[in-house]
């Protein structure tokens, strides 16, 4: 499954550690929420970055105390129809100020890239190679946005207001 980060297909530096498997002494790891919460302090003391895979059925509140020490949070789309992770992403970015890697995993298709990037995702484990290759053109599909989100894009309402001000200033 190709990983798109910063708009490019890239090598995944995180090692997915299976349930029950021993954690490597160093290097970046991606582990389950359950495993992380068993002993978060011990895991965070390891040499190497920590990323947590957070299920979409659990409030992100439990993750909040550790956010500033996490290198990645992976949110899950068990099917592309299940949109709970969009809310989780916005809460992590906009309410809790999380600024590390926010990764979309599971059923991730090109048709969701715009929604995901607007909700705050910056890394995508894309299901199909062709979709990953089409990332750059697909994510730019829209130039007009109606809703304000943490991505900072200027909304249509605000662009109209700016337009109006510049028109009246020019008169």
């Amino acid at each position, binding site marked *: 499954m190709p990983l798109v980060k910063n708009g490019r297909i890239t090598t995944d530096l995180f090692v997915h550690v299976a349930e029950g498997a021993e954690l490597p002494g160093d290097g970046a790891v991606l582990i389950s929420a359950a495993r992380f919460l068993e002993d978060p302090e011990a895991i965070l003391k390891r040499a190497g970055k920590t990323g947590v895979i957070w299920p979409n059925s659990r*409030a992100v509140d439990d993750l909040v105390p550790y956010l500033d020490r996490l290198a990645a949070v992976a949110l899950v789309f068990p099917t*592309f*129809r*299940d*949109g*709970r992770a*969009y*809310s989780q992403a*916005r809460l992590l970015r906009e*309410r809790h100020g999380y600024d590390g890697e926010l990764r979309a995993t599971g059923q991730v*298709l090109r*048709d969701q890239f*715009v*929604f*995901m990037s*607007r*909700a705050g995702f910056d890394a995508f484990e894309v299901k199909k190679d*062709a979709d990953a290759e089409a990332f750059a053109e697909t994510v730019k*599909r*829209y*130039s*007009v*946005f*109606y*809703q*304000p*989100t943490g991505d900072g894009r200027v909304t*249509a*309402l605000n*662009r*109209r*207001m700016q337009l*109006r001000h510049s028109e009246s200033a020019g008169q």
Partner: protein
Amino acid sequence: MYAYDELDRTLINERVSEFRDQVKRRLSGELTEDEFKMLRLQNGVYLQLHAYMFRVAIPYGTLSSKQLRRLAHVARRYDRGYGHFTTRQNIQFNWIKLAELPDALAELAEVGIHAMQTSGNNMRNVTSDQWAGVAPGEVEDPRIWSEILRQHTTLHPEFSFLPRKFKIAITASEHDRAAIKIHDIGLRLHKNADGETGFEVLVGGGLGRTPFIAKTIKPFVHGRDILSYVEAILRVYNQYGRRDNIYKARIKILVHELGIEKFAREVDEEWRQMGHSALTLDHSVIEEVRSRFSYPAYEKLPHMPDELKQAAHDPLFERWRKNSVAPHKVQGYSIVTLSLKPVGGPPGDATADQMDAIADLADKYSFGEIRVGHEQNLALPHVAKRDLPQLWKALDRLGLATPNVNLVTDIIACPGLDYCSLANARSIPIAQELTRRFANHDTADMIGRLHINISGCINACGHHHVGHIGILGVEKNGEEFYQITIGGRADENAQMGVLIGPAVPYAEVADVIEDIVEAYLALRDRPEELFVDTVKRLGVEPFKERVYATR
């Protein structure tokens, strides 16, 4: 009318180009049907019994004559020459080809029409009072708020994959023509004690297999906070709404399972944490949207012009006028309802030729504006009273002057088994038969306001639960049967109808409805007592007795 600007047009065009690519990938096999299904639904494309069905949005029910002509063109060029107006301010085309859909969408986009989110598990087309902006006594034009919500809910990056579909309706009048109590969120615009404009917010209404009347979650939310409050509701629903069972995924089930108090606390907590957010609408933003609605340059006209006085001698004109013409907030003008319920016709259908002709009449008599209501009728919202006789003659020639608005033959019906892959029974032939039974206008007039609603299955697209008489098609051993409810209503006093007894076979439905109506005529305590009020006074028993005593 609301004028789309360059930004709105750009977004619609970007959507068309995205969908063109999605259709191409589906046709090449790059997308599986399962993957494509969600994408086509988000663009209003269903796979029905015989063909693809294409549902186009008419936000808050307002159309320009230019837009209606384009819909006529799509009906003619891409379909079989007609369209079907639905209970949610949409128009559906039943015989569209998938490969041609992107072209049809592109042609609609040229006049600012789209099909975004007319289906799928996202926020659907925002609906409102079809008399918005012209109804006497409304608080203000609810379409300003409908448009703000339309924009906000279009391609929302957080709520495009909700547990289920989500419907918002807005009214600003005391008499609710938008049926807000049977929507996921109902908004009632009103002024508080300080004269500020805001909304009573209702939540959790809906029909289908588990019908609920919406409950008030907050009596007053200030206009500037309406987006953040709606967003708080949606965020709670997105996180906690059930996804294990599509029949239990609507917000009405979440509200019911938690109880409105607990649900309201969750929403309030979310809203509090959102704080003063980017969603707060400042005054200038609201005024910017308001400024893009234009209103006709009305003339100063007499209340009772000579043309109307003369025409009043014609009993046929008078019958139509009394039935189809409603008061307007501007003196000398009227709101005219065009019945899409001719005797023997499928409710809500209009041919391409009719649509073109209505567009011409709108240009001539209604400042180029047309409205679509949830009763599946159209309206011309700004007709000078002096023009009513001429307009009536023109409508009559087009078969659009049936004087049955709100009467027993003004039937709301879903497409049923003739088109729909979900249906268990036919709806349209039942409606057609009933319009023939009650074709006599004097009888219909004597019966008075009586709403019959027909659904071909439990999904309730014909809103049968809230019909004064509701007819629900069910299937028993391969045959079509119909459950009859009475006493429902969809207005400000909305309530569900009550079942009168065992389902009856297809062939007996019209007889049963006649029995119910006859019972009402015998039971009402005065001619002004409406059917639904008689049912309220007496309950279902006397009707049940009349229907089943001889069966």
